[in-house]
């Protein structure tokens, strides 16, 4: 069976969940060969093997951390040349998309971004995408070159599928351009202890209706009672009430959890673009005419400062 390259997103050896989802999809179209780069790359191998990687190609060099994107493109290209895969899959993170984009230009291949599903087809892998703020679903494929496809988080289940996962050192010689963009400083984001927004099974988001940074703990308390991630609308972010990294929507994160709870959010098209594919949608808003109610499975017209704390108490009581 043909091999499929899978780009591994990890932080110091800890593999992020979307990569494991990619392995599930990769196994539908071939045998996954993982490419794991940077510090801690070798430590990713056991988890990747448990989820179906037949081989794990690793490389580490200071360039990966010290310069933006291009060193990784050089490495993936080296892997591509060594493996001759039938497709190359990336997580749809900012970095994943950029590495994918440059690789596509280098190897002369078409690229599909933000797939939400992937199947084998007669003329190569068929990707499902959700477009125009999720108003349409399209099926597309790469018609020239080796398909390069980026996949959104939560597009497939993580499955155990033990495979050999043999670690192999990848030979990389960096191109002249690899050192073009220097990373002069890096400040890691502090962990909140809550699940990652794009990976969470439940997301609780607050909008302008929350009224101020000092009120966000109301949203956080509900999130914590459910083990959920916290999101925010752009209005709440622009007002400085919550960090931009938590923004849901077109210019923030796109989420697709099992359950999405919107509190004090009107449901503008740009917000919907980032959450419309959630399985179950719930909203609390005091305006019965708010467009978010067109999307909900269950909606409460009311003041979030009454409804949300009551819900939090009830969740805690039921969970005991």
């Amino acid at each position: 069976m043909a091999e499929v390259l899978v780009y591994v997103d990890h932080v110091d050896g800890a593999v992020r969940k979307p990569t494991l989802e990619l392995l599930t999809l990769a196994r539908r179209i071939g045998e996954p060969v993982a490419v794991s780069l940077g510090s801690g790359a070798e430590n990713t191998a056991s988890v990747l093997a448990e989820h179906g990687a037949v081989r794990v190609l690793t490389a580490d060099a200071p360039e990966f951390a010290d310069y933006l994107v291009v060193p990784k493109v050089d490495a993936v290209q080296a892997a591509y040349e060594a493996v001759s895969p039938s497709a190359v899959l990336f997580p749809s993170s900012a970095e994943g998309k950029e590495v994918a984009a440059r690789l596509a230009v280098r190897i002369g291949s078409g690229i599909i971004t933000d797939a939400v599903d992937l199947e084998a087809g007669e003329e190569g892998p068929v990707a499902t995408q959700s477009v125009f703020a999720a108003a349409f679903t399209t099926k597309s494929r790469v018609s020239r070159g080796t398909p390069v496809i980026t996949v959104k988080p939560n597009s497939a289940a993580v499955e155990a599928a033990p495979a050999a996962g043999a670690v192999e050192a990848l030979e990389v010689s960096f191109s002249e351009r690899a050192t073009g963009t220097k990373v002069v400083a890096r400040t890691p984001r502090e962990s909140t202890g809550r699940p990652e927004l794009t990976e969470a099974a439940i997301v609780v988001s607050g909008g302008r209706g929350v009224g101020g940074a000092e009120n966000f703990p109301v949203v956080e308390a509900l999130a914590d009672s459910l083990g959920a991630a916290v999101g925010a609308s752009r209005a709440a972010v622009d007002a400085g009430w919550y960090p931009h990294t938590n923004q849901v929507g077109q210019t923030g994160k796109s989420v697709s959890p099992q359950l999405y709870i919107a509190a004090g959010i009107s449901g503008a098209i740009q917000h919907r673009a980032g959450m419309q594919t959630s399985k179950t949608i719930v909203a609390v808003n005091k305006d019965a005419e708010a467009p978010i109610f067109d999307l909900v499975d269950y909606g409460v017209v009311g003041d979030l400062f009454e409804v949300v704390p009551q819900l939090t108490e009830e969740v805690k009581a039921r969970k005991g």
Partner: protein
Amino acid sequence: MSLRIVVCVKYVPDATGDRHFAEDLTVDRDDVDGLLSELDEYAVEQALRIADEADDAEITVLTVGPEDAKDALRKALSMGADKAVHVEDDDLHGTDALGTSLVLAKAVEKTGYDLVVCGMASTDGTMGVLPAMLAERLGVPQVSLLSEVSVADGTVTGRRDGDTATEQLQARLPAVVSVTDQSGEARYPSFKGIMAAKKKPVTSWDLEDLEIESDEVGLEGAWTAVDGATERPARTAGTIVKDEGEGGKQLAEFLAGQKFI
């Protein structure tokens, strides 16, 4: 020497309109009003600020798109850009990201540049890959997804707020940058700006001017194929209750019924 800035802007169907596909499964641009992609207004804004800081700078706005895409150029000119380039050719219909990056790269080279400024993503395609592709094709550094950007002494510096870290980036010019919607509110065109824009030069180029063969672009030359598009079924109407003091409990009941608690 003058700092030559090229801003890539896209003309897109209005996101608040009823967007859909044409029969050949390309984006229908006839039935929905188009406009300058809002995310590219941030690119124009940052270009204007960089130009203000420079001793001498010239901003060219560049678009690849149909006849009406001139509207997007006019808007950028009325914000304060100096001149515009419109790449237009019937054979461009249906061009995908790879093809568009080729056309943009040729047009940027023909214009002459020290700095290319892009938006973070287009509001219709939302791919967010063009800036990286353009940098790859031009063979220059990419300094992308910046929430802060400045240029001094032939170096571009910026801040990139990533998922796991905030990074401070630096590259020598020439370079391609892209800016996010966190980079700073875009200005509204003034009346004076709108009047002045009418007199600013707009150059039109076709594929021949850029020495691009028609089979490298368009639907024919596309590297990807859309086999089908279906409208997402409307969500079935949900239950909506008015809070009479028990709203939180009712919601908990619903969530328990769905096995979330």
